[in-house]
């Protein structure tokens, strides 16, 4: 096979990096996004092909095996995954990227050690070793942390917050041990034992860091792990002195950090509070009985259908419950029916609705709902006053007025969708059980709120049937 000089390979890597940036730029508009993603994929293909022409590669058997297995698994996962399960798939991919980075840095370390004639002459500078340690630490935390996030989202383990006394002290100890091992590696690079110990400790740390984070905080964790997978790739770029890894890793790292920040702001919590804070219901807060007793108005599909019959504008507020019930297609059918009767239907999407940034938008796109009907927090709130019915499907904390009225509540200051301003609020929910914040929701007891108890999908289907019979 024709070998390429290394300067030419680097030039092609530059082209690949430019294609990644252009690809991300395409994602700024839904219209150009498909082309953007293909542009990024072309950049990746180019980078892989020129790497295969590198003269260091002398044996293709293992490479072909790895590429074949990876491609088969990737294609199957990508084509078979349900849109509602997207958060756990992205978590899994994040983890694999981080794991790969840690393995590559480890292999590079072993190569450098075995290439040296004697232990003292290992040709690695301190900077190189710091990058290796960073890659192992971040990569391993990303791998195991993502696997725990995957298991939680897939309901393989309890999705709640799992913690034990002294958990945070244990995490701090693990982090300190990991940093100590990193220092050992930098000080004595004659063997790779310290590196693999570091990877083991970081793996335990990854599990321990994500276990105490539950349910509705998942969007933050996934965004953060996304950022870590980028930083691990960038650290591996420093290990290999490879700019395309550094550029790509920096882009992904920045993307994850920005999404993390958006998610934290949408909950009015700091990242520290999400990662280490315990979300306990405030003690002064009213109990569920005090809030709900005698004030809950349960309704039927037929009664709600009568309300919809005269409605001019309906705002639908979806939450994680819509994903759990796979209700997005039923919601689409209801939307079409209402629109055919001359009613305007819009959707109000809270940034942390669902289990990852943009989760609701993808589900509604899957159900063929045009994205210009989806309104974000700032657009939606002024519209509720001129709305006849706010239909809340499987959302709870993001519509809880306590965020604005009770400064002691765990969600105090969190921006909410002000559905109570609509003329009537209809809440589709299985029971009065609290949301992730563990507090009762006075919205359910408000004068203009009707509760339609039941599974999201079944309730919406009943509503459609009742509307058609009118």
């Amino acid at each position, binding site marked *: 096979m024709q070998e390429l000089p290394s300067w030419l390979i680097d030039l092609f890597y530059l082209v690949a990096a430019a294609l990644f940036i252009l690809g991300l730029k395409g994602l700024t508009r839904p219209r150009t996004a498909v082309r953007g993603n293909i542009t990024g994929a072309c950049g990746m293909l180019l980078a892989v092909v020129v790497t295969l022409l590198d003269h260091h590669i002398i044996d293709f058997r293992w490479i072909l095996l790895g590429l074949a297995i990876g491609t088969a698994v990737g294609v199957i996962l990508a084509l078979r995954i349900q849109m509602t399960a997207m958060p756990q798939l992205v978590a899994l991919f994040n983890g694999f990227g981080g794991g790969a980075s840690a393995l590559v840095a480890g292999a590079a370390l072993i190569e450098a050690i075995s290439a040296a004639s004697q232990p003292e002459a290992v040709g690695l500078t301190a900077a190189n070793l710091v990058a290796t340690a960073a890659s192992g630490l971040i990569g391993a935390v990303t791998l195991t942390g993502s696997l725990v996030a995957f298991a939680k989202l897939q309901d393989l383990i309890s999705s709640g917050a799992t913690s034990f006394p002294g958990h945070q002290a244990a995490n701090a100890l693990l982090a300190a041990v990991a940093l100590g091992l990193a220092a050992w590696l930098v000080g004595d690079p004659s063997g790779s034992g310290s590196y693999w110990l570091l990877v083991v400790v970081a793996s335990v740390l990854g599990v321990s860091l994500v276990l105490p984070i539950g349910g509705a905080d998942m969007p933050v964790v996934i965004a953060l792990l996304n950022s870590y997978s980028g930083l691990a790739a960038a650290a591996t770029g420093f290990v290999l002195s490879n700019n395309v890894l550094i550029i790509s890793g920096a882009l992904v790292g920045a993307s994850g950090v920005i999404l993390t920040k958006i998610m934290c702001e949408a909950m009015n919590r700091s990242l520290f509070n999400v990662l280490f804070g315990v979300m306990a219901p405030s003690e002064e807060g009213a109990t569920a009985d005090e809030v709900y007793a005698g004030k809950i108005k349960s309704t039927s599909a037929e009664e709600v259908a009568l309300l919809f019959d005269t409605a001019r504008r309906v705002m639908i507020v979806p939450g994680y419950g819509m994903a759990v019930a796979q209700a997005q297609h039923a919601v689409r059918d209801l939307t079409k029916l209402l629109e055919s009767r001359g009613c305007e239907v819009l959707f109000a999407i809270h940034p942390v609705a669902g289990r990852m940034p943009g989760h609701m*938008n993808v589900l509604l796109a899957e159900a063929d709902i045009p994205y210009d009907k989806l309104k974000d927090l700032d657009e939606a709130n002024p519209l509720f006053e001129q709305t006849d019915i706010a239909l809340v499907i499987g959302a709870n904390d993001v519509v809880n007025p306590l965020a604005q009225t009770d400064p002691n509540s765990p969600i105090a200051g969190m921006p909410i969708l002000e559905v109570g301003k609509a003329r009537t609020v209809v809440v589709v929910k299985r029971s009065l059980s609290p949301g992730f914040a563990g507090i009762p929701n006075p919205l359910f007891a408000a004068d203009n709120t009707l509760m339609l108890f039941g599974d999201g999908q079944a309730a919406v289907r009943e509503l459609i049937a009742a509307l058609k019979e009118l």
Partner: protein
Amino acid sequence: MDAHTLVIGLTVFVLSIFVGVEIITKIPPTLHTPLMSGSNAISGITLIGALLSAGSQHTALTALLGTLAVVLATINVVGGFLVTHRMLEMFRRKD
């Protein structure tokens, strides 16, 4: 990696972060899930490091580690771009 190479790498890293922040902040919330899966596929670029480890045959151990890394990174790259494409097609067909 000498000090000069390190500084060049840091230069590239810092400037790339600025480029990333400029672009990512312009991406609308409705595309945040495809952004995560798509950017995640890009972080699979570590695949090229894995290819070098798997193919350069320094030792059996590095070839094994490299091959394992090739598998993980390829799942990340192929699965990531493909699932992003699937999602974005759903956004496009409403135009």
